[in-house]
């Protein structure tokens, strides 16, 4: 009979990973009902990143994969970061008046207008 071509994980490990993933799902759903302000988004994304990492490491066997495959995964994450971070570095640094939906309750202040050339006539 032929040799095994890859590492065989213990069944117990998979079941444990499954339980952890279900707990994280319950946690992320529960946290959404607690007011943490801006940290709701941070916590939700942090939990999602944890869950995805666990799936990649255990279910997708990255823990026991060769270096070449780890490199491919790293490249995927790196390029995704380039895509999102550099896009946001443009949008997130524009002054507020250029954002069409800036809430009425937070009026554009003179301070913000001062930051943009050509709009000094506003109050």
């Amino acid at each position, binding site marked *: *009979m*032929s*040799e*095994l*071509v*890859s590492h*065989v*994980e213990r*069944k117990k490990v*998979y*079941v444990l*990973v*499954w339980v952890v*993933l*279900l707990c994280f*799902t*319950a946690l*992320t*759903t529960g946290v*959404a*009902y*607690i*007011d*943490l302000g801006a940290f*709701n*988004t941070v916590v*939700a*994304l942090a*939990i*999602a990143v944890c*869950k*995805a990492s666990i*799936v*990649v490491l*255990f*279910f*997708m066997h990255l823990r026991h*994969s*060769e270096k*070449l*495959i780890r490199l*491919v*995964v790293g*490249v*995927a*994450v790196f*390029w*995704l970061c380039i*895509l*999102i971070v550099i*896009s*946001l570095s443009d*949008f*997130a640094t524009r002054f507020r008046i250029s*954002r*069409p*939906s800036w*809430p009425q309750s937070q009026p554009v202040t003179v301070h913000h207008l001062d930051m943009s050339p050509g709009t000094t006539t506003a109050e």
Partner: protein
Amino acid sequence: MSEEQHATLVAEQFDDQVQQYQAASLGMWVFLTTEVLFFGGLFASYTIYRYLHYPGFEIGSHHLEVLWGATNTAVLICSSLTMALAVRAAQLGKIKDLIGFLVVTLIFGLIFLFIKFAMEWRHEYLEGLAPGVNFTYAGPHAHQVEMFMIFYFVLTGLHALHMIVGCGIMTTLIILALRGAFSKGHYNAVEIAGLYWHFVDIVWIFLFPLLYLIGGRY
């Protein structure tokens, strides 16, 4: 293993089964990298639009059913477990177990699609939240809410399309396994189908908080 068996199990461009296995895995991972950027473009544009039109996106998010979203997350996590166990059974050459786990994975996939289409999409359509076909929401920030719902339908639709493809792959694997196509050390198709299935699970792991939870529910 005899030379004859070896010839039928290893394609001629490969030295041995290990190299053949590594090539198959690498090929799938490279494909998944392209998929990361395929979904990544939509995730990036979702992030930007949510940043620009936050109030409407918050209202839109509150119209989605968290319970169904969470249920579907759990369903996919269960399907990932059975898929991982199917690959394990294939590794050990336990073909009966392999077929059993593949069938269960397929059933979980179909449950996901049923909840997605018959429960959620139908509900949103009847609520008048389906842009282009039935959009009757006229509350505050109506245009932004419409934009959110477009993102919702495109993102979940694209994910559901991947699930449908995944269910097709499961069906194919079950038929192949029944025909005796897999044996110990010869299960690359199961391994890389597993990688695809888990990837689709990961996409949903991000979609669930981004669409249903961000903005808070309190």
